[in-house]
């Protein structure tokens, strides 16, 4: 039977399953599930509600920042300043509240700080053509230094009149015994997923990562969008900082030190491509989950914590190796 042109055009090339199997994210999910099943049998401590509560909550801080980072990475950029921005936002919140202001004002100040830093990063990158790596490396240093200045490098653990509200915000479990940070993470992941898939803004982010020149030629407002993604990245760091402050009940200038690498690792393990054009909200969460499960399991299995880096590094390389193998096969 002859196939008409219209039939060919209407045809879908890949079924849902073949697409699913070809994504890196899917295999990372499988890896996380297998690891969890293995750990439930291998140790008594893993499948306890307390441990699961801890794991899910620990995932959230990296995951929330990874959601913001996903936007940046899809455009082909990178944001190394997130750990320091998280620290500075926490510190602004802590210092503001410590000075006697309400939690609303504290959060507002904290978010405003994060957005200002994101706008600064984005403007240098989009309008002045600075390489993202350099700008955010500079900001990594600047933001942490500002956090030290703001607190005079002390630990802040008294948050004024709204002290208890802040602790409840980050440390409570308002719904079905799920830790609050997990709820925020789920909400933010849904928002991120929606933006990436269903909005013009999301579409343009992918276009910039795929071919920035083409995006410019077709009238995509490339510069504005670039500023926006660095603001989103900084905002996600700020939000994570606020939640973490509430959970820890104290802020030190060490907070979020080295976090940028974990965040980037989570997005890459979850399937984002550092060259740009690829990434999902779900992938960022799954990547963060795999890192946390590895870390947790090493502790439970009684393996020396010094090995942690080897396993997490190995996971990054394996995830990307997988992607490479698929690409080789496709180009054959």
């Amino acid at each position: 039977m002859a196939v008409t042109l219209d039939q060919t055009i209407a045809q879908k090339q890949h079924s849902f399953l073949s697409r699913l199997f070809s994504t890196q994210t899917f295999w990372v999910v499988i890896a996380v599930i297998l690891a969890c099943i293995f750990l439930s049998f291998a140790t008594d401590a893993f499948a306890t509600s307390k441990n699961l509560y801890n794991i899910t909550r620990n995932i959230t801080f990296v995951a929330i920042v990874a959601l913001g980072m996903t936007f940046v990475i899809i455009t082909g950029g990178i944001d190394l300043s997130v750990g320091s921005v998280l620290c500075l936002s926490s510190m602004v919140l802590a210092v503001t509240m410590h000075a006697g202001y309400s939690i609303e004002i504290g959060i507002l100040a904290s978010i405003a700080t994060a957005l200002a830093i994101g706008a600064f990063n984005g403007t240098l990158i989009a309008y002045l053509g600075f390489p993202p790596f350099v700008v955010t490396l500079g900001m990594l240093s600047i933001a942490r230094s500002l956090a030290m200045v703001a607190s005079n490098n002390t630990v802040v653990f008294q948050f004024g009149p709204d002290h208890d509200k802040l602790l409840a915000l980050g440390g409570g479990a308002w719904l079905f015994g799920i830790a609050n940070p997990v709820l925020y993470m789920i909400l933010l992941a849904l928002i991120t997923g929606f933006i990436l898939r269903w909005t013009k803004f999301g579409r343009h982010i992918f276009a910039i990562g795929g071919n920035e020149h083409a995006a410019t030629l077709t009238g995509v407002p490339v510069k504005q969008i670039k500023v926006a993604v660095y603001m989103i990245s900084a905002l996600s760091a700020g939000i994570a900082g606020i939640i973490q402050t509430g959970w820890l009940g104290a802020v030190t200038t060490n907070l979020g030190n080295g976090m940028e690498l974990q965040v980037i690792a989570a997005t890459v393990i979850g399937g984002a491509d550092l060259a740009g054009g690829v990434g999902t909200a779900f992938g960022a969460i799954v990547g963060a989950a795999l890192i946390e499960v590895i870390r947790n399991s090493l502790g439970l299995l009684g393996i020396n914590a010094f090995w942690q880096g080897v396993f997490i590094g190995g996971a990054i390389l394996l995830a990307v190796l997988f992607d490479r193998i698929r690409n080789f096969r496709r180009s054959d």
Partner: protein
Amino acid sequence: MRCDLEQAGSKEWGGYRLVAVLELTNISKHFGAIQAVNDVSLSIEPGQVVGLMGDNGAGKSTLVKMIAGNFHPSHGIMRMDGKELLLNKPAEARQHGIEIVHQDLALCNNLTAAANVYLGRELRRGIGPFRILDYAAMYKRAGKLFAELKSETRPRDLVKQMSGGQRQAVAIARTMLSQAKIVLMDEPTAAISVRQVAEVLNLIRHLRDQGIAVVLISHRMPDVFDVADRVIVMRRGRKVADKTIASSSPEEVTGLITGAIEQVS
């Protein structure tokens, strides 16, 4: 007048002279002391394929960039449908119905064919500020455009996986979204296989059949003689020939490009 022509959908519109869709009168462009384009006049009619040929540095790119709104002419007037055309940026050219297919096609490999067709002009549905991308409508319309172009291109496929001919179809379908009157194509057949060249030339014919004027900038003599109605040759910023294909020959055009033949009227 134009409406009738569009409906006619073919080139059989009698012996009378048509209103030019684009008319350049005494256009010059210099960059400092360099005279890139020198006193060029030409007119292009609806549904006509014009081959624009010339060696590197002959001024054809500069000429096209003025039509596309990248440069202002130093002297001269451009008219579109008889009205003077003043372009400050490429977006304004597009509003006037001038579309460009860039040499590198300006495609995003990580997006689907439909997403590329609609890049920068995405369709959305919803109410007020709450509007989401209308995937179904974009797939459907892009599929229709590919069908019109007789190209086996699937709207849901990633551009990454496509052949050179399909990629051209995506770039050309993009120009058909709006009511394009003239499409400028920059070396569309320069970097693709022989079989795909035939595909691209067919795409050009389908554009022409819809009453769209095509300016084909090319180095490849066989392509121009295959698809074009007219050939314009430029050398050192001047127009040295403007002839129907029937009245010219590849040998003559080669001579004009190299300068072995000075000028023909």
